[in-house]
C-alpha cells in the first residue's frame, strides 16, 4: 500500500524533521517495512553526503565490525584522493554516516568512487538534500537519526509496504536521482514499464542503486531536467511515458511537485495555505501537523502540481 507525504514552507525554516515524523507515524498502518525522509536544510556551500555500509538486515558475522571499519576507512581514503576535504563526519548508526565536504569537482565521479567501495551506497548527495531511511516506523527512524533537531524548508517522506523489492534500506524510499544532486522522489504505486525504462536509462549511462521501480521516476525526472526541462514539464512528460498506477512527489532544492496518473488509483490529499503546502496519502497525516479545521482536496487524475519556494 505505502504512504507518501510532503511539506513545503514558503517562508523560512521550520522543524520539518519533527513534522515529517508525525505525518509518517500517523500513516504507519500503510507500510510497516521501512520509513524514509528527504529533508532540505538551508543550502550550504559544502556538499552533504549520506551513505551506508550495511543495513539492519546485514548478518552480524564475526567479521562484520572489521569489515565496516575497513570500508569506512576506504571511503574516507577515496574522498581524500579526489581532493574532497572532510569538514565533518557523523556516525548516525553503526552503518550509516553523514559527511560534509568541501568539494567542487564532479559529484557523479565522487558518488561513483564512493559506491565502488564494497557494501557502500550513497543515500543522498547535494548542497541541501539529506535522505534518511531505515527499517522500522517513523518514530524509530527519527529517534535513531535524531531528526527532532532537523530544521529546514521542505521535506518528503515514505512509509513502505514492500511489494516490488526486498525489505532493506536499498528498497526504501525516498530515492535520490543518482547522479543528480538535490533531487529526490517518493512514490506510491507500481510502474509496469519499469524494465523498459531501466534499460533505456541504463543505455544513457545511468545506473541504479536498487531493484525498486520507484527509483526510475527520480532518474527519469532528473535526466529531463538536466536536458533543460522544468520540473513541471518533466513531470507532465512522465504521465505520458511512465505506465502504471502511481502518485509520486518529487523535490528539488527549491521546489516540491506532485503527479497523479490517469487511473488516479493511489490516493493523495492536499492542503494549501499562504505559508505552506502539506500533502499526504491520507488526510490524517496532514492533521498530524495542523491541528485546526482545514479545507483539503484530492488532486484529480493526470494532474501535476508544483510549488516553488
Amino acid at each position: 500500500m505505502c504512504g507518501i507525504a510532503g511539506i513545503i514552507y514558503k517562508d523560512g525554516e521550520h522543524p520539518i524533521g519533527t513534522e515529517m515524523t508525525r505525518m509518517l507515524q500517523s500513516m504507519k498502518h500503510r507500510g510497516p517495512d521501512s520509513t524514509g525522509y528527504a529533508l532540505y536544510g538551508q543550502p550550504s556551500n559544502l556538499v552533504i553526503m549520506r551513505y551506508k555500509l550495511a543495513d539492519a538486515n546485514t548478518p552480524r558475522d564475526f567479521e562484520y565490525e572489521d569489515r565496516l571499519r575497513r570500508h569506512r576507512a576506504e571511503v574516507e581514503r577515496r574522498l581524500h584522493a579526489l581532493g574532497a576535504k572532510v569538514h565533518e563526519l557523523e556516525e548516525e548508526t553503526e552503518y550509516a554516516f553523514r559527511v560534509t565536504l568541501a568539494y567542487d569537482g564532479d559529484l557523479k565521479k565522487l558518488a561513483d568512487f564512493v559506491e565502488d567501495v564494497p557494501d557502500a551506497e550513497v543515500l543522498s548527495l547535494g548542497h541541501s538534500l539529506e535522505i534518511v531511511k531505515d527499517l522500522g516506523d517513523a518514530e524509530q527512524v527519527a529517534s535513531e537519526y535524531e531528526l527532532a533537531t532537523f530544521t529546514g524548508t521542505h521535506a518528503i517522506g515514505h512509509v513502505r509496504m514492500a511489494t516490488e523489492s526486498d525489505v532493506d534500506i536499498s528498497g526504501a524510499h525516498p530515492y535520490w536521482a543518482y547522479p543528480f544532486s538535490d533531487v529526490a522522489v517518493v512514490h506510491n504505486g507500481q510502474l509496469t514499464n519499469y524494465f523498459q525504462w531501466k534499460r533505456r536509462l541504463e543505455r544513457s549511462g545511468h545506473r541504479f542503486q536498487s531493484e525498486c521501480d520507484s527509483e526510475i521516476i527520480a532518474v527519469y525526472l532528473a535526466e529531463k531536467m538536466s536536458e533543460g526541462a522544468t520540473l513541471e514539464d518533466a513531470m507532465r512528460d512522465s504521465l505520458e511515458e511512465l505506465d502504471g498506477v502511481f502518485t509520486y512527489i518529487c523535490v528539488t532544492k527549491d521546489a516540491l511537485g506532485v503527479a497523479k496518473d490517469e487511473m488516479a488509483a493511489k490516493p493523495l490529499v492536499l492542503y494549501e495555505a499562504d505559508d505552506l503546502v502539506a500533502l499526504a496519502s491520507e488526510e490524517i497525516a496532514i492533521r498530524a501537523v495542523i491541528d485546526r479545521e482545514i479545507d483539503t482536496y484530492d488532486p484529480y487524475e493526470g494532474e501535476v502540481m508544483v510549488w516553488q519556494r
Partner: protein
Amino acid sequence: MAALAGEHSISYDARGLAEPDAAVPKVSEISGTSAEFDAHDLSTRQINLELRWLIYEQGVTDVTVRNPGAKHSLGVGILSRCKITFDGSLGYFGCGIIDGPEVHVKGRVGWSACENMMSGVVVIDGNAGSLTGAAMRGGDLVVKGRVGARSGIDQKGGTIIVLGSAGSMNGFMMQRGRQIICGDVGHGLGDSMYDGTIYVGGKVRSLGIDCVPGEWTDADTEFVERKFRIYGLGGPPQLQKFVCGKKLYNYDNLEPSERKLVL
C-alpha cells in the same frame, strides 16, 4: 504556525493497527435525546464505540461529534434512524455501511465515503475523495464540493449529488441508482455501466464504454428538482443525461429476488 500532533495519542498493536481497547469512553454530554462529545483525544475505535453506545443504549437520536480530526472509518455501520453531525472532516471510509442515519459532515471526507450505504442521508459540506458512494445501495449522498475518481463505482441504488466536479471513471460499472454531477466530469464517464442514470451539468471529457446520452423526460425534471428542493440546493443547472447503451452486457437470467417478483 502551531505544529501539534492530532493523532499522536493513538497507540498501535503489533500489526501497526490502531489500539484494540474495546472500552466505551462514555465522555458525552447527554441532554435528553441529544448528545455531544469531543473526539480530539479519542481513537477511531473509541469514537465508534461511543456513537454506538449513545445510539443503541442511551436512546440518543441526535449526536454531535466535535473535532473528528479526519480520522478514518468514523460513523460506520450505524443501522438506526438518528442524526449525526461531524463538526469537522473525516478520513477514508467515513459513514460506510450505514442503514438509516442522517449525517452531516461540516468538513470534507476522504476516500470511499458512504461505501455500501444502504439508506439514510449524508450531506458533506466540503470535498470528497475518490470512490465516493462505492457500491452504494440506497439513500442520498450530497457533496457540496467536488469528488475524486470513480465516484459511485458499482453503485446499486440511491442518489449521489455533487455540486462541484468529479474525476474520471465516474459511475464505473454502475448497476442502478442516479448521480447528479453539477460540474465537469473526467474521462470515461459511466464506463461499463449496466444501468442507472447520470446527469452532468458541466463538460464531459469522454464517455466510457457503453455509456450513451439518454432522452430527457418530465420524470427527470421532476426528480432533479425534487432532490434540489429537499436539500435546499437552489435551482438545478442545465443537465445532460447519460444512461447505459445496453450493447455490452446481455442477461438471460434474472436474480432470484427478481424472479420471485415476476413469477
